[in-house]
């Protein structure tokens, strides 16, 4: 429920900010640090059913804590924008509650080994952070190599392809003759 409410708050404030921006500002928003942000690439997927109660609660506690720290930082640097700062202040209150609640539940579920569970969860976050960084570096390297290949290897083939394209008919094309179903061509 809280997360849904936060999403509404972010969306509403985001719309207000977007509405105030000039049209061209959209193009400047092309840079998004997706490669460094957690989630959405399969590296951070959490299979809830596969986790024990204490490891799941440790994971949630650290995630809430990280979110609370991040939101606290955003709130600090948004002194020039009171409206957005207000959004973060409200959300930070919830995140702090989630952080404390998950910690209390972790202590309840695992009174003796909650510290160990937290350290395992921290190591897991460190490993996933490494994977994110490595994947971002690999992404940059592959882009550079492929772009170089594009300009070094492809020009001659591009000439042939462009010449062939000029001979293509417009409109209907006869259906290509059926290839065997075992073939990937």
């Amino acid at each position, binding site marked *: 429920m809280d997360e849904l409410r936060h999403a509404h708050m972010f969306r509403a404030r985001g719309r207000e900010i977007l*509405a105030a921006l000039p049209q061209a500002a959209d193009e400047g928003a092309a840079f998004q640090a997706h490669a460094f942000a957690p989630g959405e690439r399969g590296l951070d997927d959490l299979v809830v059913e596969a986790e024990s109660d204490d490891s799941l609660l440790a994971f949630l506690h650290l995630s809430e804590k990280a979110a609370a720290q991040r939101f606290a930082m955003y709130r600090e640097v948004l002194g020039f924008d009171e409206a957005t700062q207000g959004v973060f202040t409200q959300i930070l209150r919830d995140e702090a509650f989630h952080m404390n609640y998950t910690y209390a539940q972790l202590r309840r579920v695992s009174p003796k080994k909650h510290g160990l569970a937290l350290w395992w969860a921290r190591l897991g976050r460190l490993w996933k952070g490494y994977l994110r960084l490595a994947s971002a570096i690999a992404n940059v390297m592959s882009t550079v190599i*492929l772009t170089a290949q594009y300009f070094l290897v492809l020009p001659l083939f591009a000439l042939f392809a462009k010449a062939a394209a000029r001979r293509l008919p417009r409109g209907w*094309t006869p259906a290509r003759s059926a290839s065997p179903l075992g073939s990937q061509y």
Partner: protein
Amino acid sequence: MKILGISAHYHDSAAALVVDGLPVAAVQEERLSRKKNDAAFPLEAIEWCLRAGNVTPEELDWVVFYEKPMLKFERIVTTILREFPASWRAFPKAMKNTLGEKLWIKGVITSHLGVPGSKILFTEHHQSHAAMAFLTAPTRRAAIMTADGVGEWATLSVGRGEVKDDGTTTIEVLREVRFPHSLGMLYSTFTAFLGFEVNEGEYKVMGLASYGSPRFVDDVRKVIARTDDGAFALDMRYFDYHKTSERSFSAAFVDLFGPPRKPHSPLDPTTESGRRYADIAASAQRVLEDTLVDLAKDLRRETGLADLCFGGGVALNGCANARILRESGFERLFVPSAPGDAGCALGAALFVDRVHLGRKHREIPHHPYWGPVVEPGELSRVAAEDGMPCETLSTDDAALDRVVDALAAGKIVGWMDGAAELGPRALGNRSILAAPHTAAMRDRLNKEIKYREEFRPFAPAVPIEVADEYFDLPPGGAPLGAFMSGVFPVREKWRDRLAAVTHVDGTARVQTVERDKAPRFYELLKRYGRRTGIPVLLNTSFNLAGEPIVTRAVEGYTTFRRCGIDVLAVGRHIVTKPAPGTKNAVEEQ
């Protein structure tokens, strides 16, 4: 004979299992992974299909992938070469995107399922669409048309299918239009231009079109011209989708139609700028419809057949479908419940069974309910854990009456019953239902539950035998409405009393419900009709914005708890939300 069909890696991946010529299970990956439009390899969907069919991977005779990956790769590389050097940004992305997993699908299937490579087959993308459209339709001879964004090379194809007297089946593709000329890409380009998400916001363009007048038709015809042979060709100066993955329209497109709408900015068709976007949407819609009607007319003349089976993502355009039915000369039009890529999983499996292996035709039940069956008892358990009282009615009659009471009292009901639908529409088994009589209900649904734009219409469901009383259905319209595939006028005298489902132009995307396909839903409509005098309910998909339609009772319950749905009914189990301000047992603790 056990055949597993798989579609994946573009949008909306899915799996389907066909045993001895009949589908036994089919589901989209998103319904299980809970990621909207999940395009990943559909491992969960495959596992569920095999479980549902009680089949192990070793027992599979064939596994069919819905398109030919190498042929698709050829198209991608050729397009990049043709657009050199403008395609330099697209090249690294395309290579990384394709070479990572998509090109090695045979190995992926082998490693996940453990089946030998010799058992893996590949149909062509539009073959799969055609097979889904024709082989699941209640017809034995029909013309076939498929249209989408792009498959391998084809973007639109026409042909015919026949089930012969000896039970053998043929599907013949006569000709095709090839990439980059594509009706699907044309519509998606307007979708992006109007600030909506491509492959998701096309419904919004169609809904918005009703608010506008097609005053930009001549401009749209500049970007898509008809060719002498009766097909069409896009003027690629107006498009960028063949050069880059970052935008679909070019600067020339913006020069022609003006500045694009910013995503997320409010869109009010009553304002001047909103009206302009609505007019552009109406113009794009008109040209799409005109083109499809002309293509269908030619196909009707050429084949002389009475039935048309229409597949591909473009077939989700209900307004265009209604015009095809009215104007093309075909007597019946069949659009499957999942005409898009998800349905290709089933289409590919059926193609192998009927056409490739030449096995005898078997009549396929004409319904969309091939997904996981909801477990009513799960609702009681989850509600109890959450401290919400869950009533279990003693008989089905009592449960139906309780739901009718709630609907008649203006409550919004989350309704889950039986097997989930295959395809993007909730057709009475995973639906949010409400009384369709007032515009206030529509506004409430938009604001409290669906969190979506006000210009988007809601659909009505009505028993098929009385559909014509409330809606102006052309001959063949009622069967087209079985899967909500056509948009038809609401009869003038009912528009005031069906205000929540009557769009601004007086139309509605009608679902005609048959007793033998959805008996409980049908019975609910009949009982509601007896109570209120109008056997029509508002039926919208059971999900929140940005989420897939619910599958299991627990998902229905969490959705129910997060939005303004008043009552949740799963079989004979019913949970009613307490009045505002009342806490449930868990919250009180």
